[in-house]
């Protein structure tokens, strides 16, 4: 019997046949015939971190820092170290992550394997852009140093490669110099998509971090309303007292399924939108609530109850963004795909070194949707068709539903990627999207 290795959304379930928990990253690869997959924090929403009937390799013991250069901010650490642990080490020394996703409870290995992105994609691109090298352990026990100049195909295949090319044992990443842990944040209400794009165009020129919370349940007349949030690192003086690092509040049990329902979600969204009383509001905040608002609630996925939830994230290219998003939002609203957390952002055009990288220039929307039954999956497939029609694509790291044809269309490079997949590695996601072979 093993402890559970679930995904974050919990809509998809899997039971590994075997679990390995190597203690030292120098330990040899386990010899087992079953397909294997590394597991860090299990924060992938869908089945990229699941391996039903296969072997799970729990990398959470890989927590050593191997080296840190105080002058250049280059950190070499084992892949099981979480971004939270990186920050606990680096922030007091004046360094921050160049790219961070919306939670710090992911491992460095996971951040590379999903080529995560953050609120500063328009300035810094994805996480993989700031990885200079890493060691990849293949299932035949081969250890390969991967960098833009050495084993460069495996380097590119592993970034965003969803754990399919091998196990990342350690990695070297570039951090960013900061003068303090505080952020100057500005919140602005907007009432239409056009207004959002206007705010974004202006803010992306002047602000490091930009993102919008979108009310996807707004009445038709106010479709596309939300709150635009931008931020920059600041050095604070002694007399400024910003909100300090919060205490975490656990969600101790699964909420009953009826708690998050269309009415309550719509009500929550309305309150959240109107809470922002002023049109524009600037204030000082600690980096914790700015970057990681949900991390305060440990196990927040329990709010969705036992049925679980899915995350739908797509990107639409720049020229189709306004029209495509409007149609997407109308479909979401009409289909009653009620999400209480919808996020909208404009991606920049900085390319990622990753072969299967998701972001591209355009606008991305991400929404959490409680699982209500097979009709939901059908509705999401319909949304996928819309996304494909506008030339967009979906994010594998969050996916739990896309069909093989959709994956093939979104990532035509999947064929050359598959030549780098380690024959000893697989995942529920990969088997699902390549099931036509």
């Amino acid at each position, binding site marked *: *019997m093993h402890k559970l290795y679930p995904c974050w959304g919990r809509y998809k379930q899997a039971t590994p046949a075997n679990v390995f928990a190597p203690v*030292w990253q120098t330990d040899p690869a386990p010899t087992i015939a079953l397909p294997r997959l590394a597991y860090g924090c299990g924060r992938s929403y869908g089945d990229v971190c699941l391996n039903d009937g296969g072997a799970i390799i729990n990398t959470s013991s890989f927590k*050593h*820092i191997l*080296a840190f250069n105080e002058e250049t901010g280059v950190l070499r650490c084992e892949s099981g170290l979480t971004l939270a642990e990186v920050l606990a*080490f680096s922030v007091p020394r004046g360094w921050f992550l160049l790219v961070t996703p919306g939670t710090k409870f992911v491992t460095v290995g996971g951040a590379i394997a999903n080529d995560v992105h953050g609120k500063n994609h328009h300035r810094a691109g994805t996480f993989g852009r700031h990885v200079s090298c890493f060691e990849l352990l293949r299932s035949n026990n081969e250890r390969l140093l991967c960098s833009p100049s050495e084993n460069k195909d495996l380097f590119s295949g592993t970034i965003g490669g969803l754990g399919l090319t091998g196990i990342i044992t350690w990695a070297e990443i570039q951090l960013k110099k900061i003068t303090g842990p505080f952020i100057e944040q500005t919140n602005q209400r907007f009432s239409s998509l056009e207004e959002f794009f206007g705010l974004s165009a202006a803010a992306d020129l002047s602000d490091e971090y930009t993102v919008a919370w979108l009310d996807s349940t707004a009445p038709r007349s106010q479709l596309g309303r939300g709150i635009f949030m931008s931020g920059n690192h600041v050095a604070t003086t002694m007399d400024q007292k910003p909100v300090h690092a919060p205490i975490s509040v656990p969600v101790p049990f699964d909420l009953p399924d009826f708690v998050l329902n269309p009415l309550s979600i719509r009500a929550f969204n309305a309150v959240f939108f109107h809470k922002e009383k002023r049109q524009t509001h600037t204030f000082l905040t600690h980096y914790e609530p700015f970057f990681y608002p949900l991390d305060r609630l440990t196990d927040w996925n329990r709010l969705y109850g036992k049925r679980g939830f899915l995350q739908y994230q797509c990107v639409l290219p720049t020229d189709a963004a306004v029209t495509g998003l409007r149609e997407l939002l109308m479909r979401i609203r009409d289909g009653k795909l009620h999400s209480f957390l919808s996020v909208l952002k404009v991606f920049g055009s900085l390319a990622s070194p990753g072969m299967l990288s998701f972001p591209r220039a355009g606008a991305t929307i991400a929404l959490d949707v409680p699982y209500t039954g097979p009709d939901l999956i059908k509705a999401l497939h319909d949304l996928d068709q819309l996304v494909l029609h506008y030339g967009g694509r979906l994010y594998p790291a969050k996916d739990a539903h896309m069909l093989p044809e959709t994956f093939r269309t979104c990532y035509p490079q999947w064929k050359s990627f598959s030549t780098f997949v380690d024959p000893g590695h697989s995942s529920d996601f990969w088997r699902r999207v390549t099931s036509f072979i």
Partner: protein
Amino acid sequence: MTRYLIIGATSAIAQASIRPLASKAAHFTLVAKSPDKLAIVAADLMTRGATVETHLFDASHPETIAPLVANLLANGVAYDHVLVAHGILLPQVECEQSLERTQEMWTVNTTSIILFLTAILPFFKKQRHGHIAVISSVAGDRGRANLATYGASKAALDTFLEGYRLGLIPFHVGVLTIKPGYVETPMIAHLAPSPLTRSAEQVGHRIAHDLEQQKTGTVYVPRFWSVIMWVVRWLPEGIFRRLPV
């Protein structure tokens, strides 16, 4: 500068306990069996600002204790903290099938520690300050059929530490017996998961705190184990033997 002597420095609990203590004001003397693993632990502590030295020691060879202690404590080197954290858990079935394995576990868990503590005693009596902590286990609190040998190896340690602690009171040296419950380390990887299990990080933070506070006596980590073990110790045998433990 706080000087730490860590025996069994590559164990999961030891690493989790000393990492929070790493800083520019800390010097660690790390003692363990494997030079490669010691190097990894040392590098991690050094990036966190500490100064580190390493020494090799295999607890299954108690004859190496006297020269080790002589080497470590020569030239009047004084340690503020000693943490003894090595140990092995062999399934009871394995102990019953092999006298050699039983002997090995007893040597590593009990003999080597009692000998080590005896060897450092004159130095600490002379030093007249300091703190010595030893990682024991809740398993020593009562004998169980499926943990008889391991439990006894810890129980012997606990009783020795009780006397050792009292003997050092006049010399102003504090002695702490640390009793973790189920900790998610390789030691219990073969056991079924339990809601009582905690990660090495969680336990390590508590131990680091207890070391900084120079706590003496016995502490259970997490604290709720003190209640559980109080009940376990109290239960009459007639009832205890019917429990599915």
